[in-house]
């Protein structure tokens, strides 16, 4: 039987606010345990929550970015359960009435093997505001578990999709797209190692061609795209094998173990809590007006899809190039800055996706940490365009600039990379080459095209690589046909 996997994602994005969602406590990652915990974070008797407007602002931005319904009135609810890292014994979240309703994200699924790349719309069910829990710390004190409430109350936006994805590749493409988007609109730092962007993936399988959804298992807290791929692929295989062996899938929460590459059930549905949700009486309903939306909308940056279209229309980039350059706002801004500084758009795109990207990858840096400024790169491209240096020489200049050896012109001068573009000088070199390689000239005249290239090579060699190759070509052609 052929099987189809059905995937939906719930993503917790940590919002970039100065303080916690319901208190004035700071939210610095990695601080000493319990130093970012005020009386509200500790859930002392008598404390009350006050909603952080910045967090609401972030939620509205996200709603606008995915073209979603933004609820004019949404409600905070208490999700009741006992856990040591949950100081109040309930989490303040949104249940029946979330702040962001239905929206959509368009993903680009890359080509894989014989399958071509394609676009797909992933529907967003909802996104709601909630507070994060603290952390249990094991091993800090012997035979005891510690509780660190620094993270308790950190604002989260939980973004839930419809079960629209049909492969690990689609799920990862969605997760990456979302990851790009939340950083693009500056609501989340996207730091997956620090847990700022965590995905829970719901996976089920069904016979291909059937409608009814299979029983799902939820893979919790995936914090890398690599693990997500591995976890979904393992989980899918496991579910199919289980069903093919005549077993049944039980609804469960599972954890992915990166060491073994396997998923394992944490708790089954029978053990699941009854969260006893009810509206939090300490908080008023969250009212968002059209004016609020308009005000925040006016402050929104150009969104990736719009910018991609603009890069294609205004700069003549291919869809692929435009798409690659709009994976992050910083990347796109860097590109625009190069072009604004006078470089050719296509050339700029090629360099960014070639040398720059390779260099960043090898050093595991993002564009913000790029050693070369957009202006410097633009100058380098200008020097290629005006014939001062060859493409090959430009690569050397690029390496030197990356290493911090100075600006473009001083490196060209220091390394003697300036190209020979004086026609007289090149003609003189070519005359010498022709004189010294009579046999090759004969071969060319006998119709051997290859001999031409050999002659060009000789001329370049004679000029120590500095002759402008285009001019060499041109002059040589002229002289041979004379």
């Amino acid at each position, binding site marked *: 039987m052929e099987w189809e996997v059905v995937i939906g994602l719930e993503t917790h994005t940590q919002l970039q606010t100065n303080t916690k969602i319901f208190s004035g406590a700071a939210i610095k990652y990695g601080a000493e345990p319990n130093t970012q915990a005020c009386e509200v974070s500790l859930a*002392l008797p008598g404390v009350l929550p006050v909603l952080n407007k910045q967090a609401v602002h972030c939620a509205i931005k996200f709603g606008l970015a995915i073209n979603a319904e933004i609820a004019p009135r949404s409600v905070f609810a208490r999700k009741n359960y006992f856990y040591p890292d949950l100081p109040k014994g309930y989490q303040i979240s949104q249940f029946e009435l979330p702040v962001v309703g239905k929206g959509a994200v368009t993903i680009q699924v890359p080509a894989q093997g014989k399958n071509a790349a394609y676009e797909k719309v992933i529907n967003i069910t909802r996104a709601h505001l909630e507070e994060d829990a603290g952390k249990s710390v094991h091993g800090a004190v012997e035979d005891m578990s510690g509780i660190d409430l620094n993270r308790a109350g950190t604002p989260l936006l939980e973004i839930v999709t419809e079960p629209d994805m049909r492969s690990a590749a689609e799920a990862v493409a969605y997760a990456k797209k979302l990851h790009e988007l939340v950083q693009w609109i500056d609501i989340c730092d996207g730091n997956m190692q620090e847990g700022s962007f965590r995905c829970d993936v719901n996976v089920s399988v069904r016979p291909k061609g059937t409608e009814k959804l299979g029983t799902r298992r939820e893979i919790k807290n995936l914090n890398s795209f690599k693990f997500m791929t591995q976890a979904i692929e393992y989980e899918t295989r496991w579910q199919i094998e289980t069903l093919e062996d005549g077993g049944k899938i039980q609804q469960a929460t599972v954890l992915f173990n990166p060491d073994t590459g396997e998923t394992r059930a944490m708790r089954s549905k029978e053990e699941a809590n009854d969260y006893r949700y009810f509206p939090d009486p300490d908080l008023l309903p969250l009212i968002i007006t059209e004016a609020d939306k308009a005000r925040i909308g006016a402050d929104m940056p150009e969104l990736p899809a719009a910018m991609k279209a603009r890069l294609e229309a205004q700069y003549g980039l291919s869809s692929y190039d435009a798409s690659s350059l709009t994976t992050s706002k910083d990347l796109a801004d860097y590109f625009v800055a190069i072009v604004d500084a006078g470089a050719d758009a296509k050339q700029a795109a090629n360099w960014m996706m070639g040398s720059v990207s390779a260099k960043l990858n090898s050093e595991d840096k993002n564009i913000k940490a790029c050693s070369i400024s957009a202006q410097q790169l633009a100058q380098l491209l200008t020097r290629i365009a005006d014939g001062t240096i060859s493409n090959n020489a430009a690569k050397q200049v690029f390496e030197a600039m990356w290493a911090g050896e100075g600006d473009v012109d001083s490196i060209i001068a220091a390394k003697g990379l300036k190209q020979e573009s004086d026609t007289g000088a090149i003609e003189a070199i070519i005359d010498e080459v022709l004189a010294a390689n009579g046999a090759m000239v004969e071969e060319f005249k006998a119709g051997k095209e290859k001999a031409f290239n050999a002659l060009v090579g000789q001329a370049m060699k004679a000029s120590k690589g500095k002759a402008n190759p285009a001019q060499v070509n041109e002059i040589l052609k002229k002289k041979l046909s004379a």
Partner: protein
Amino acid sequence: MNQIDLTHFSLRQIAELLQSKKISSVELTQTFLARIKQYNPNINAYIALDEDKTLAQAQAADARIAAGNVTPLTGIPIAQKDIFCAKGWPTTCGSKMLAEFIAPYDAHVISQFDSAGAVNLGKTNMDEFAMGSSNETSYFGGVKNPWSYDRVPGGSSGGSAAAVAARLCAAATGTDTGGSIRQPASLCGLTGLKPTYGVVSRYGMIAFASSLDQAGPMAKSAEDCALMMNVMAGFDERDSTSLDRAKEDYCKDLHQPLRGLKIGLPKEFFAQGLDANVGKVIEAAISQYKKLGADIIEISLPNTGLSIPVYYVLAPAEASSNLSRYDGVRYGHRSAEYSDLMDMYCKSRAEGFGAEVKRRILIGTYVLSAGYYDAYYLKAQQIRRLIAQDFVEAFKQCDVIMGPAAPSTAFKAGEKVDDPVAMYLQDIYTISTNLAGLPGMSVPAGFAQSDDGKSLPVGLQIIGNYFDEARMLGVAHQYQQVTDWHKQAPNLDMPEGIA
């Protein structure tokens, strides 16, 4: 200066003595502390006293007075219900769960009194987590009604009520979720006001049922309550349900005459269940209002009968969640021995909470559970809106609503402790105002004979429209100009009373 006289003085009289420097705050505070030392061991109104802290505040108040930087409450010793967090003070909420808890921060109400220069005389006893109508659920033992030591003072603000009645403080704070200011005020013969929901910040006030809890003053007279309200009320950004309104002077309507005042008497408040002797006192008070020129109108609050069932769904629901933080993890009682995390939770909570608190946590957990939520919680919320609508209709016909604050006078300790429903009925006349968020007060209106021939205080309840506290205080004050029920004080040394 005669001790007894001083402790019976109104806040305004005491303020005059302090500000004219006829007496210092330290002397005044010592007078109250001496009286507390004498009577509190028997009455048990206070569960935390700290003379050093209290006298340090009195000294600071004297310095303020010397510097001429005074408010009407500067230097005046106030008793604080032990539901308010007060920095450095034990804050127990009447529970074993918090028996060792010292608050590291001040509730809004506490800091308001501090800024006014008032002196914190001590923390008063209360029903555990404010759940009770007799003060008998307190981990620290019951409170005796100063009018008759074999009786309860009412609850949950029983300690504050007894402290005011016994003149063990100049005035006190209380909180009212279903009647916890008004019912003890009625049973102890004092004036108590539960303001409109949102007028006094709940920040630092330990939550019982968040959508119903409201702090208010408990004092000897309406004027004293007005002066207390001037300190307690006001917007606080730390409480999202605090109402952002202009600061109000609650004394502004004290002298307004009552001619033409339309008083609504809900027929449901005078039906079956009301003690006949209490009914007579209330009728006499109404007659007095007629003499003052008020018009009496019969009105109906048809959903009154539903208020107790609705309350006992909603309040426990909120309480079950509010009390989840007492898990033994960060502070509060933790069982000495446990095998694992679940065992620690279970034992700590089983040991830390008393029977009434457990009963309400169980009810609340039940009504919020999957499959029951719609039938209980949601339905109760719908009826809550109907109850509020009853009042909206009523206030189209009248300015204030009057009736009894409690169905009976103080009952004997132990009498209702095993019958929760009988205990819950104590709040039959008060709960609906909490559900509607309206202000309500209890005003001493006379005395009724008990079965065993004791003369016990009866409170007249005045319910006003939203934000009508100043008017209600005026309505009470005008009555107190022509009656002296509020000036009656119990004889604490009556031999038969000392149990």
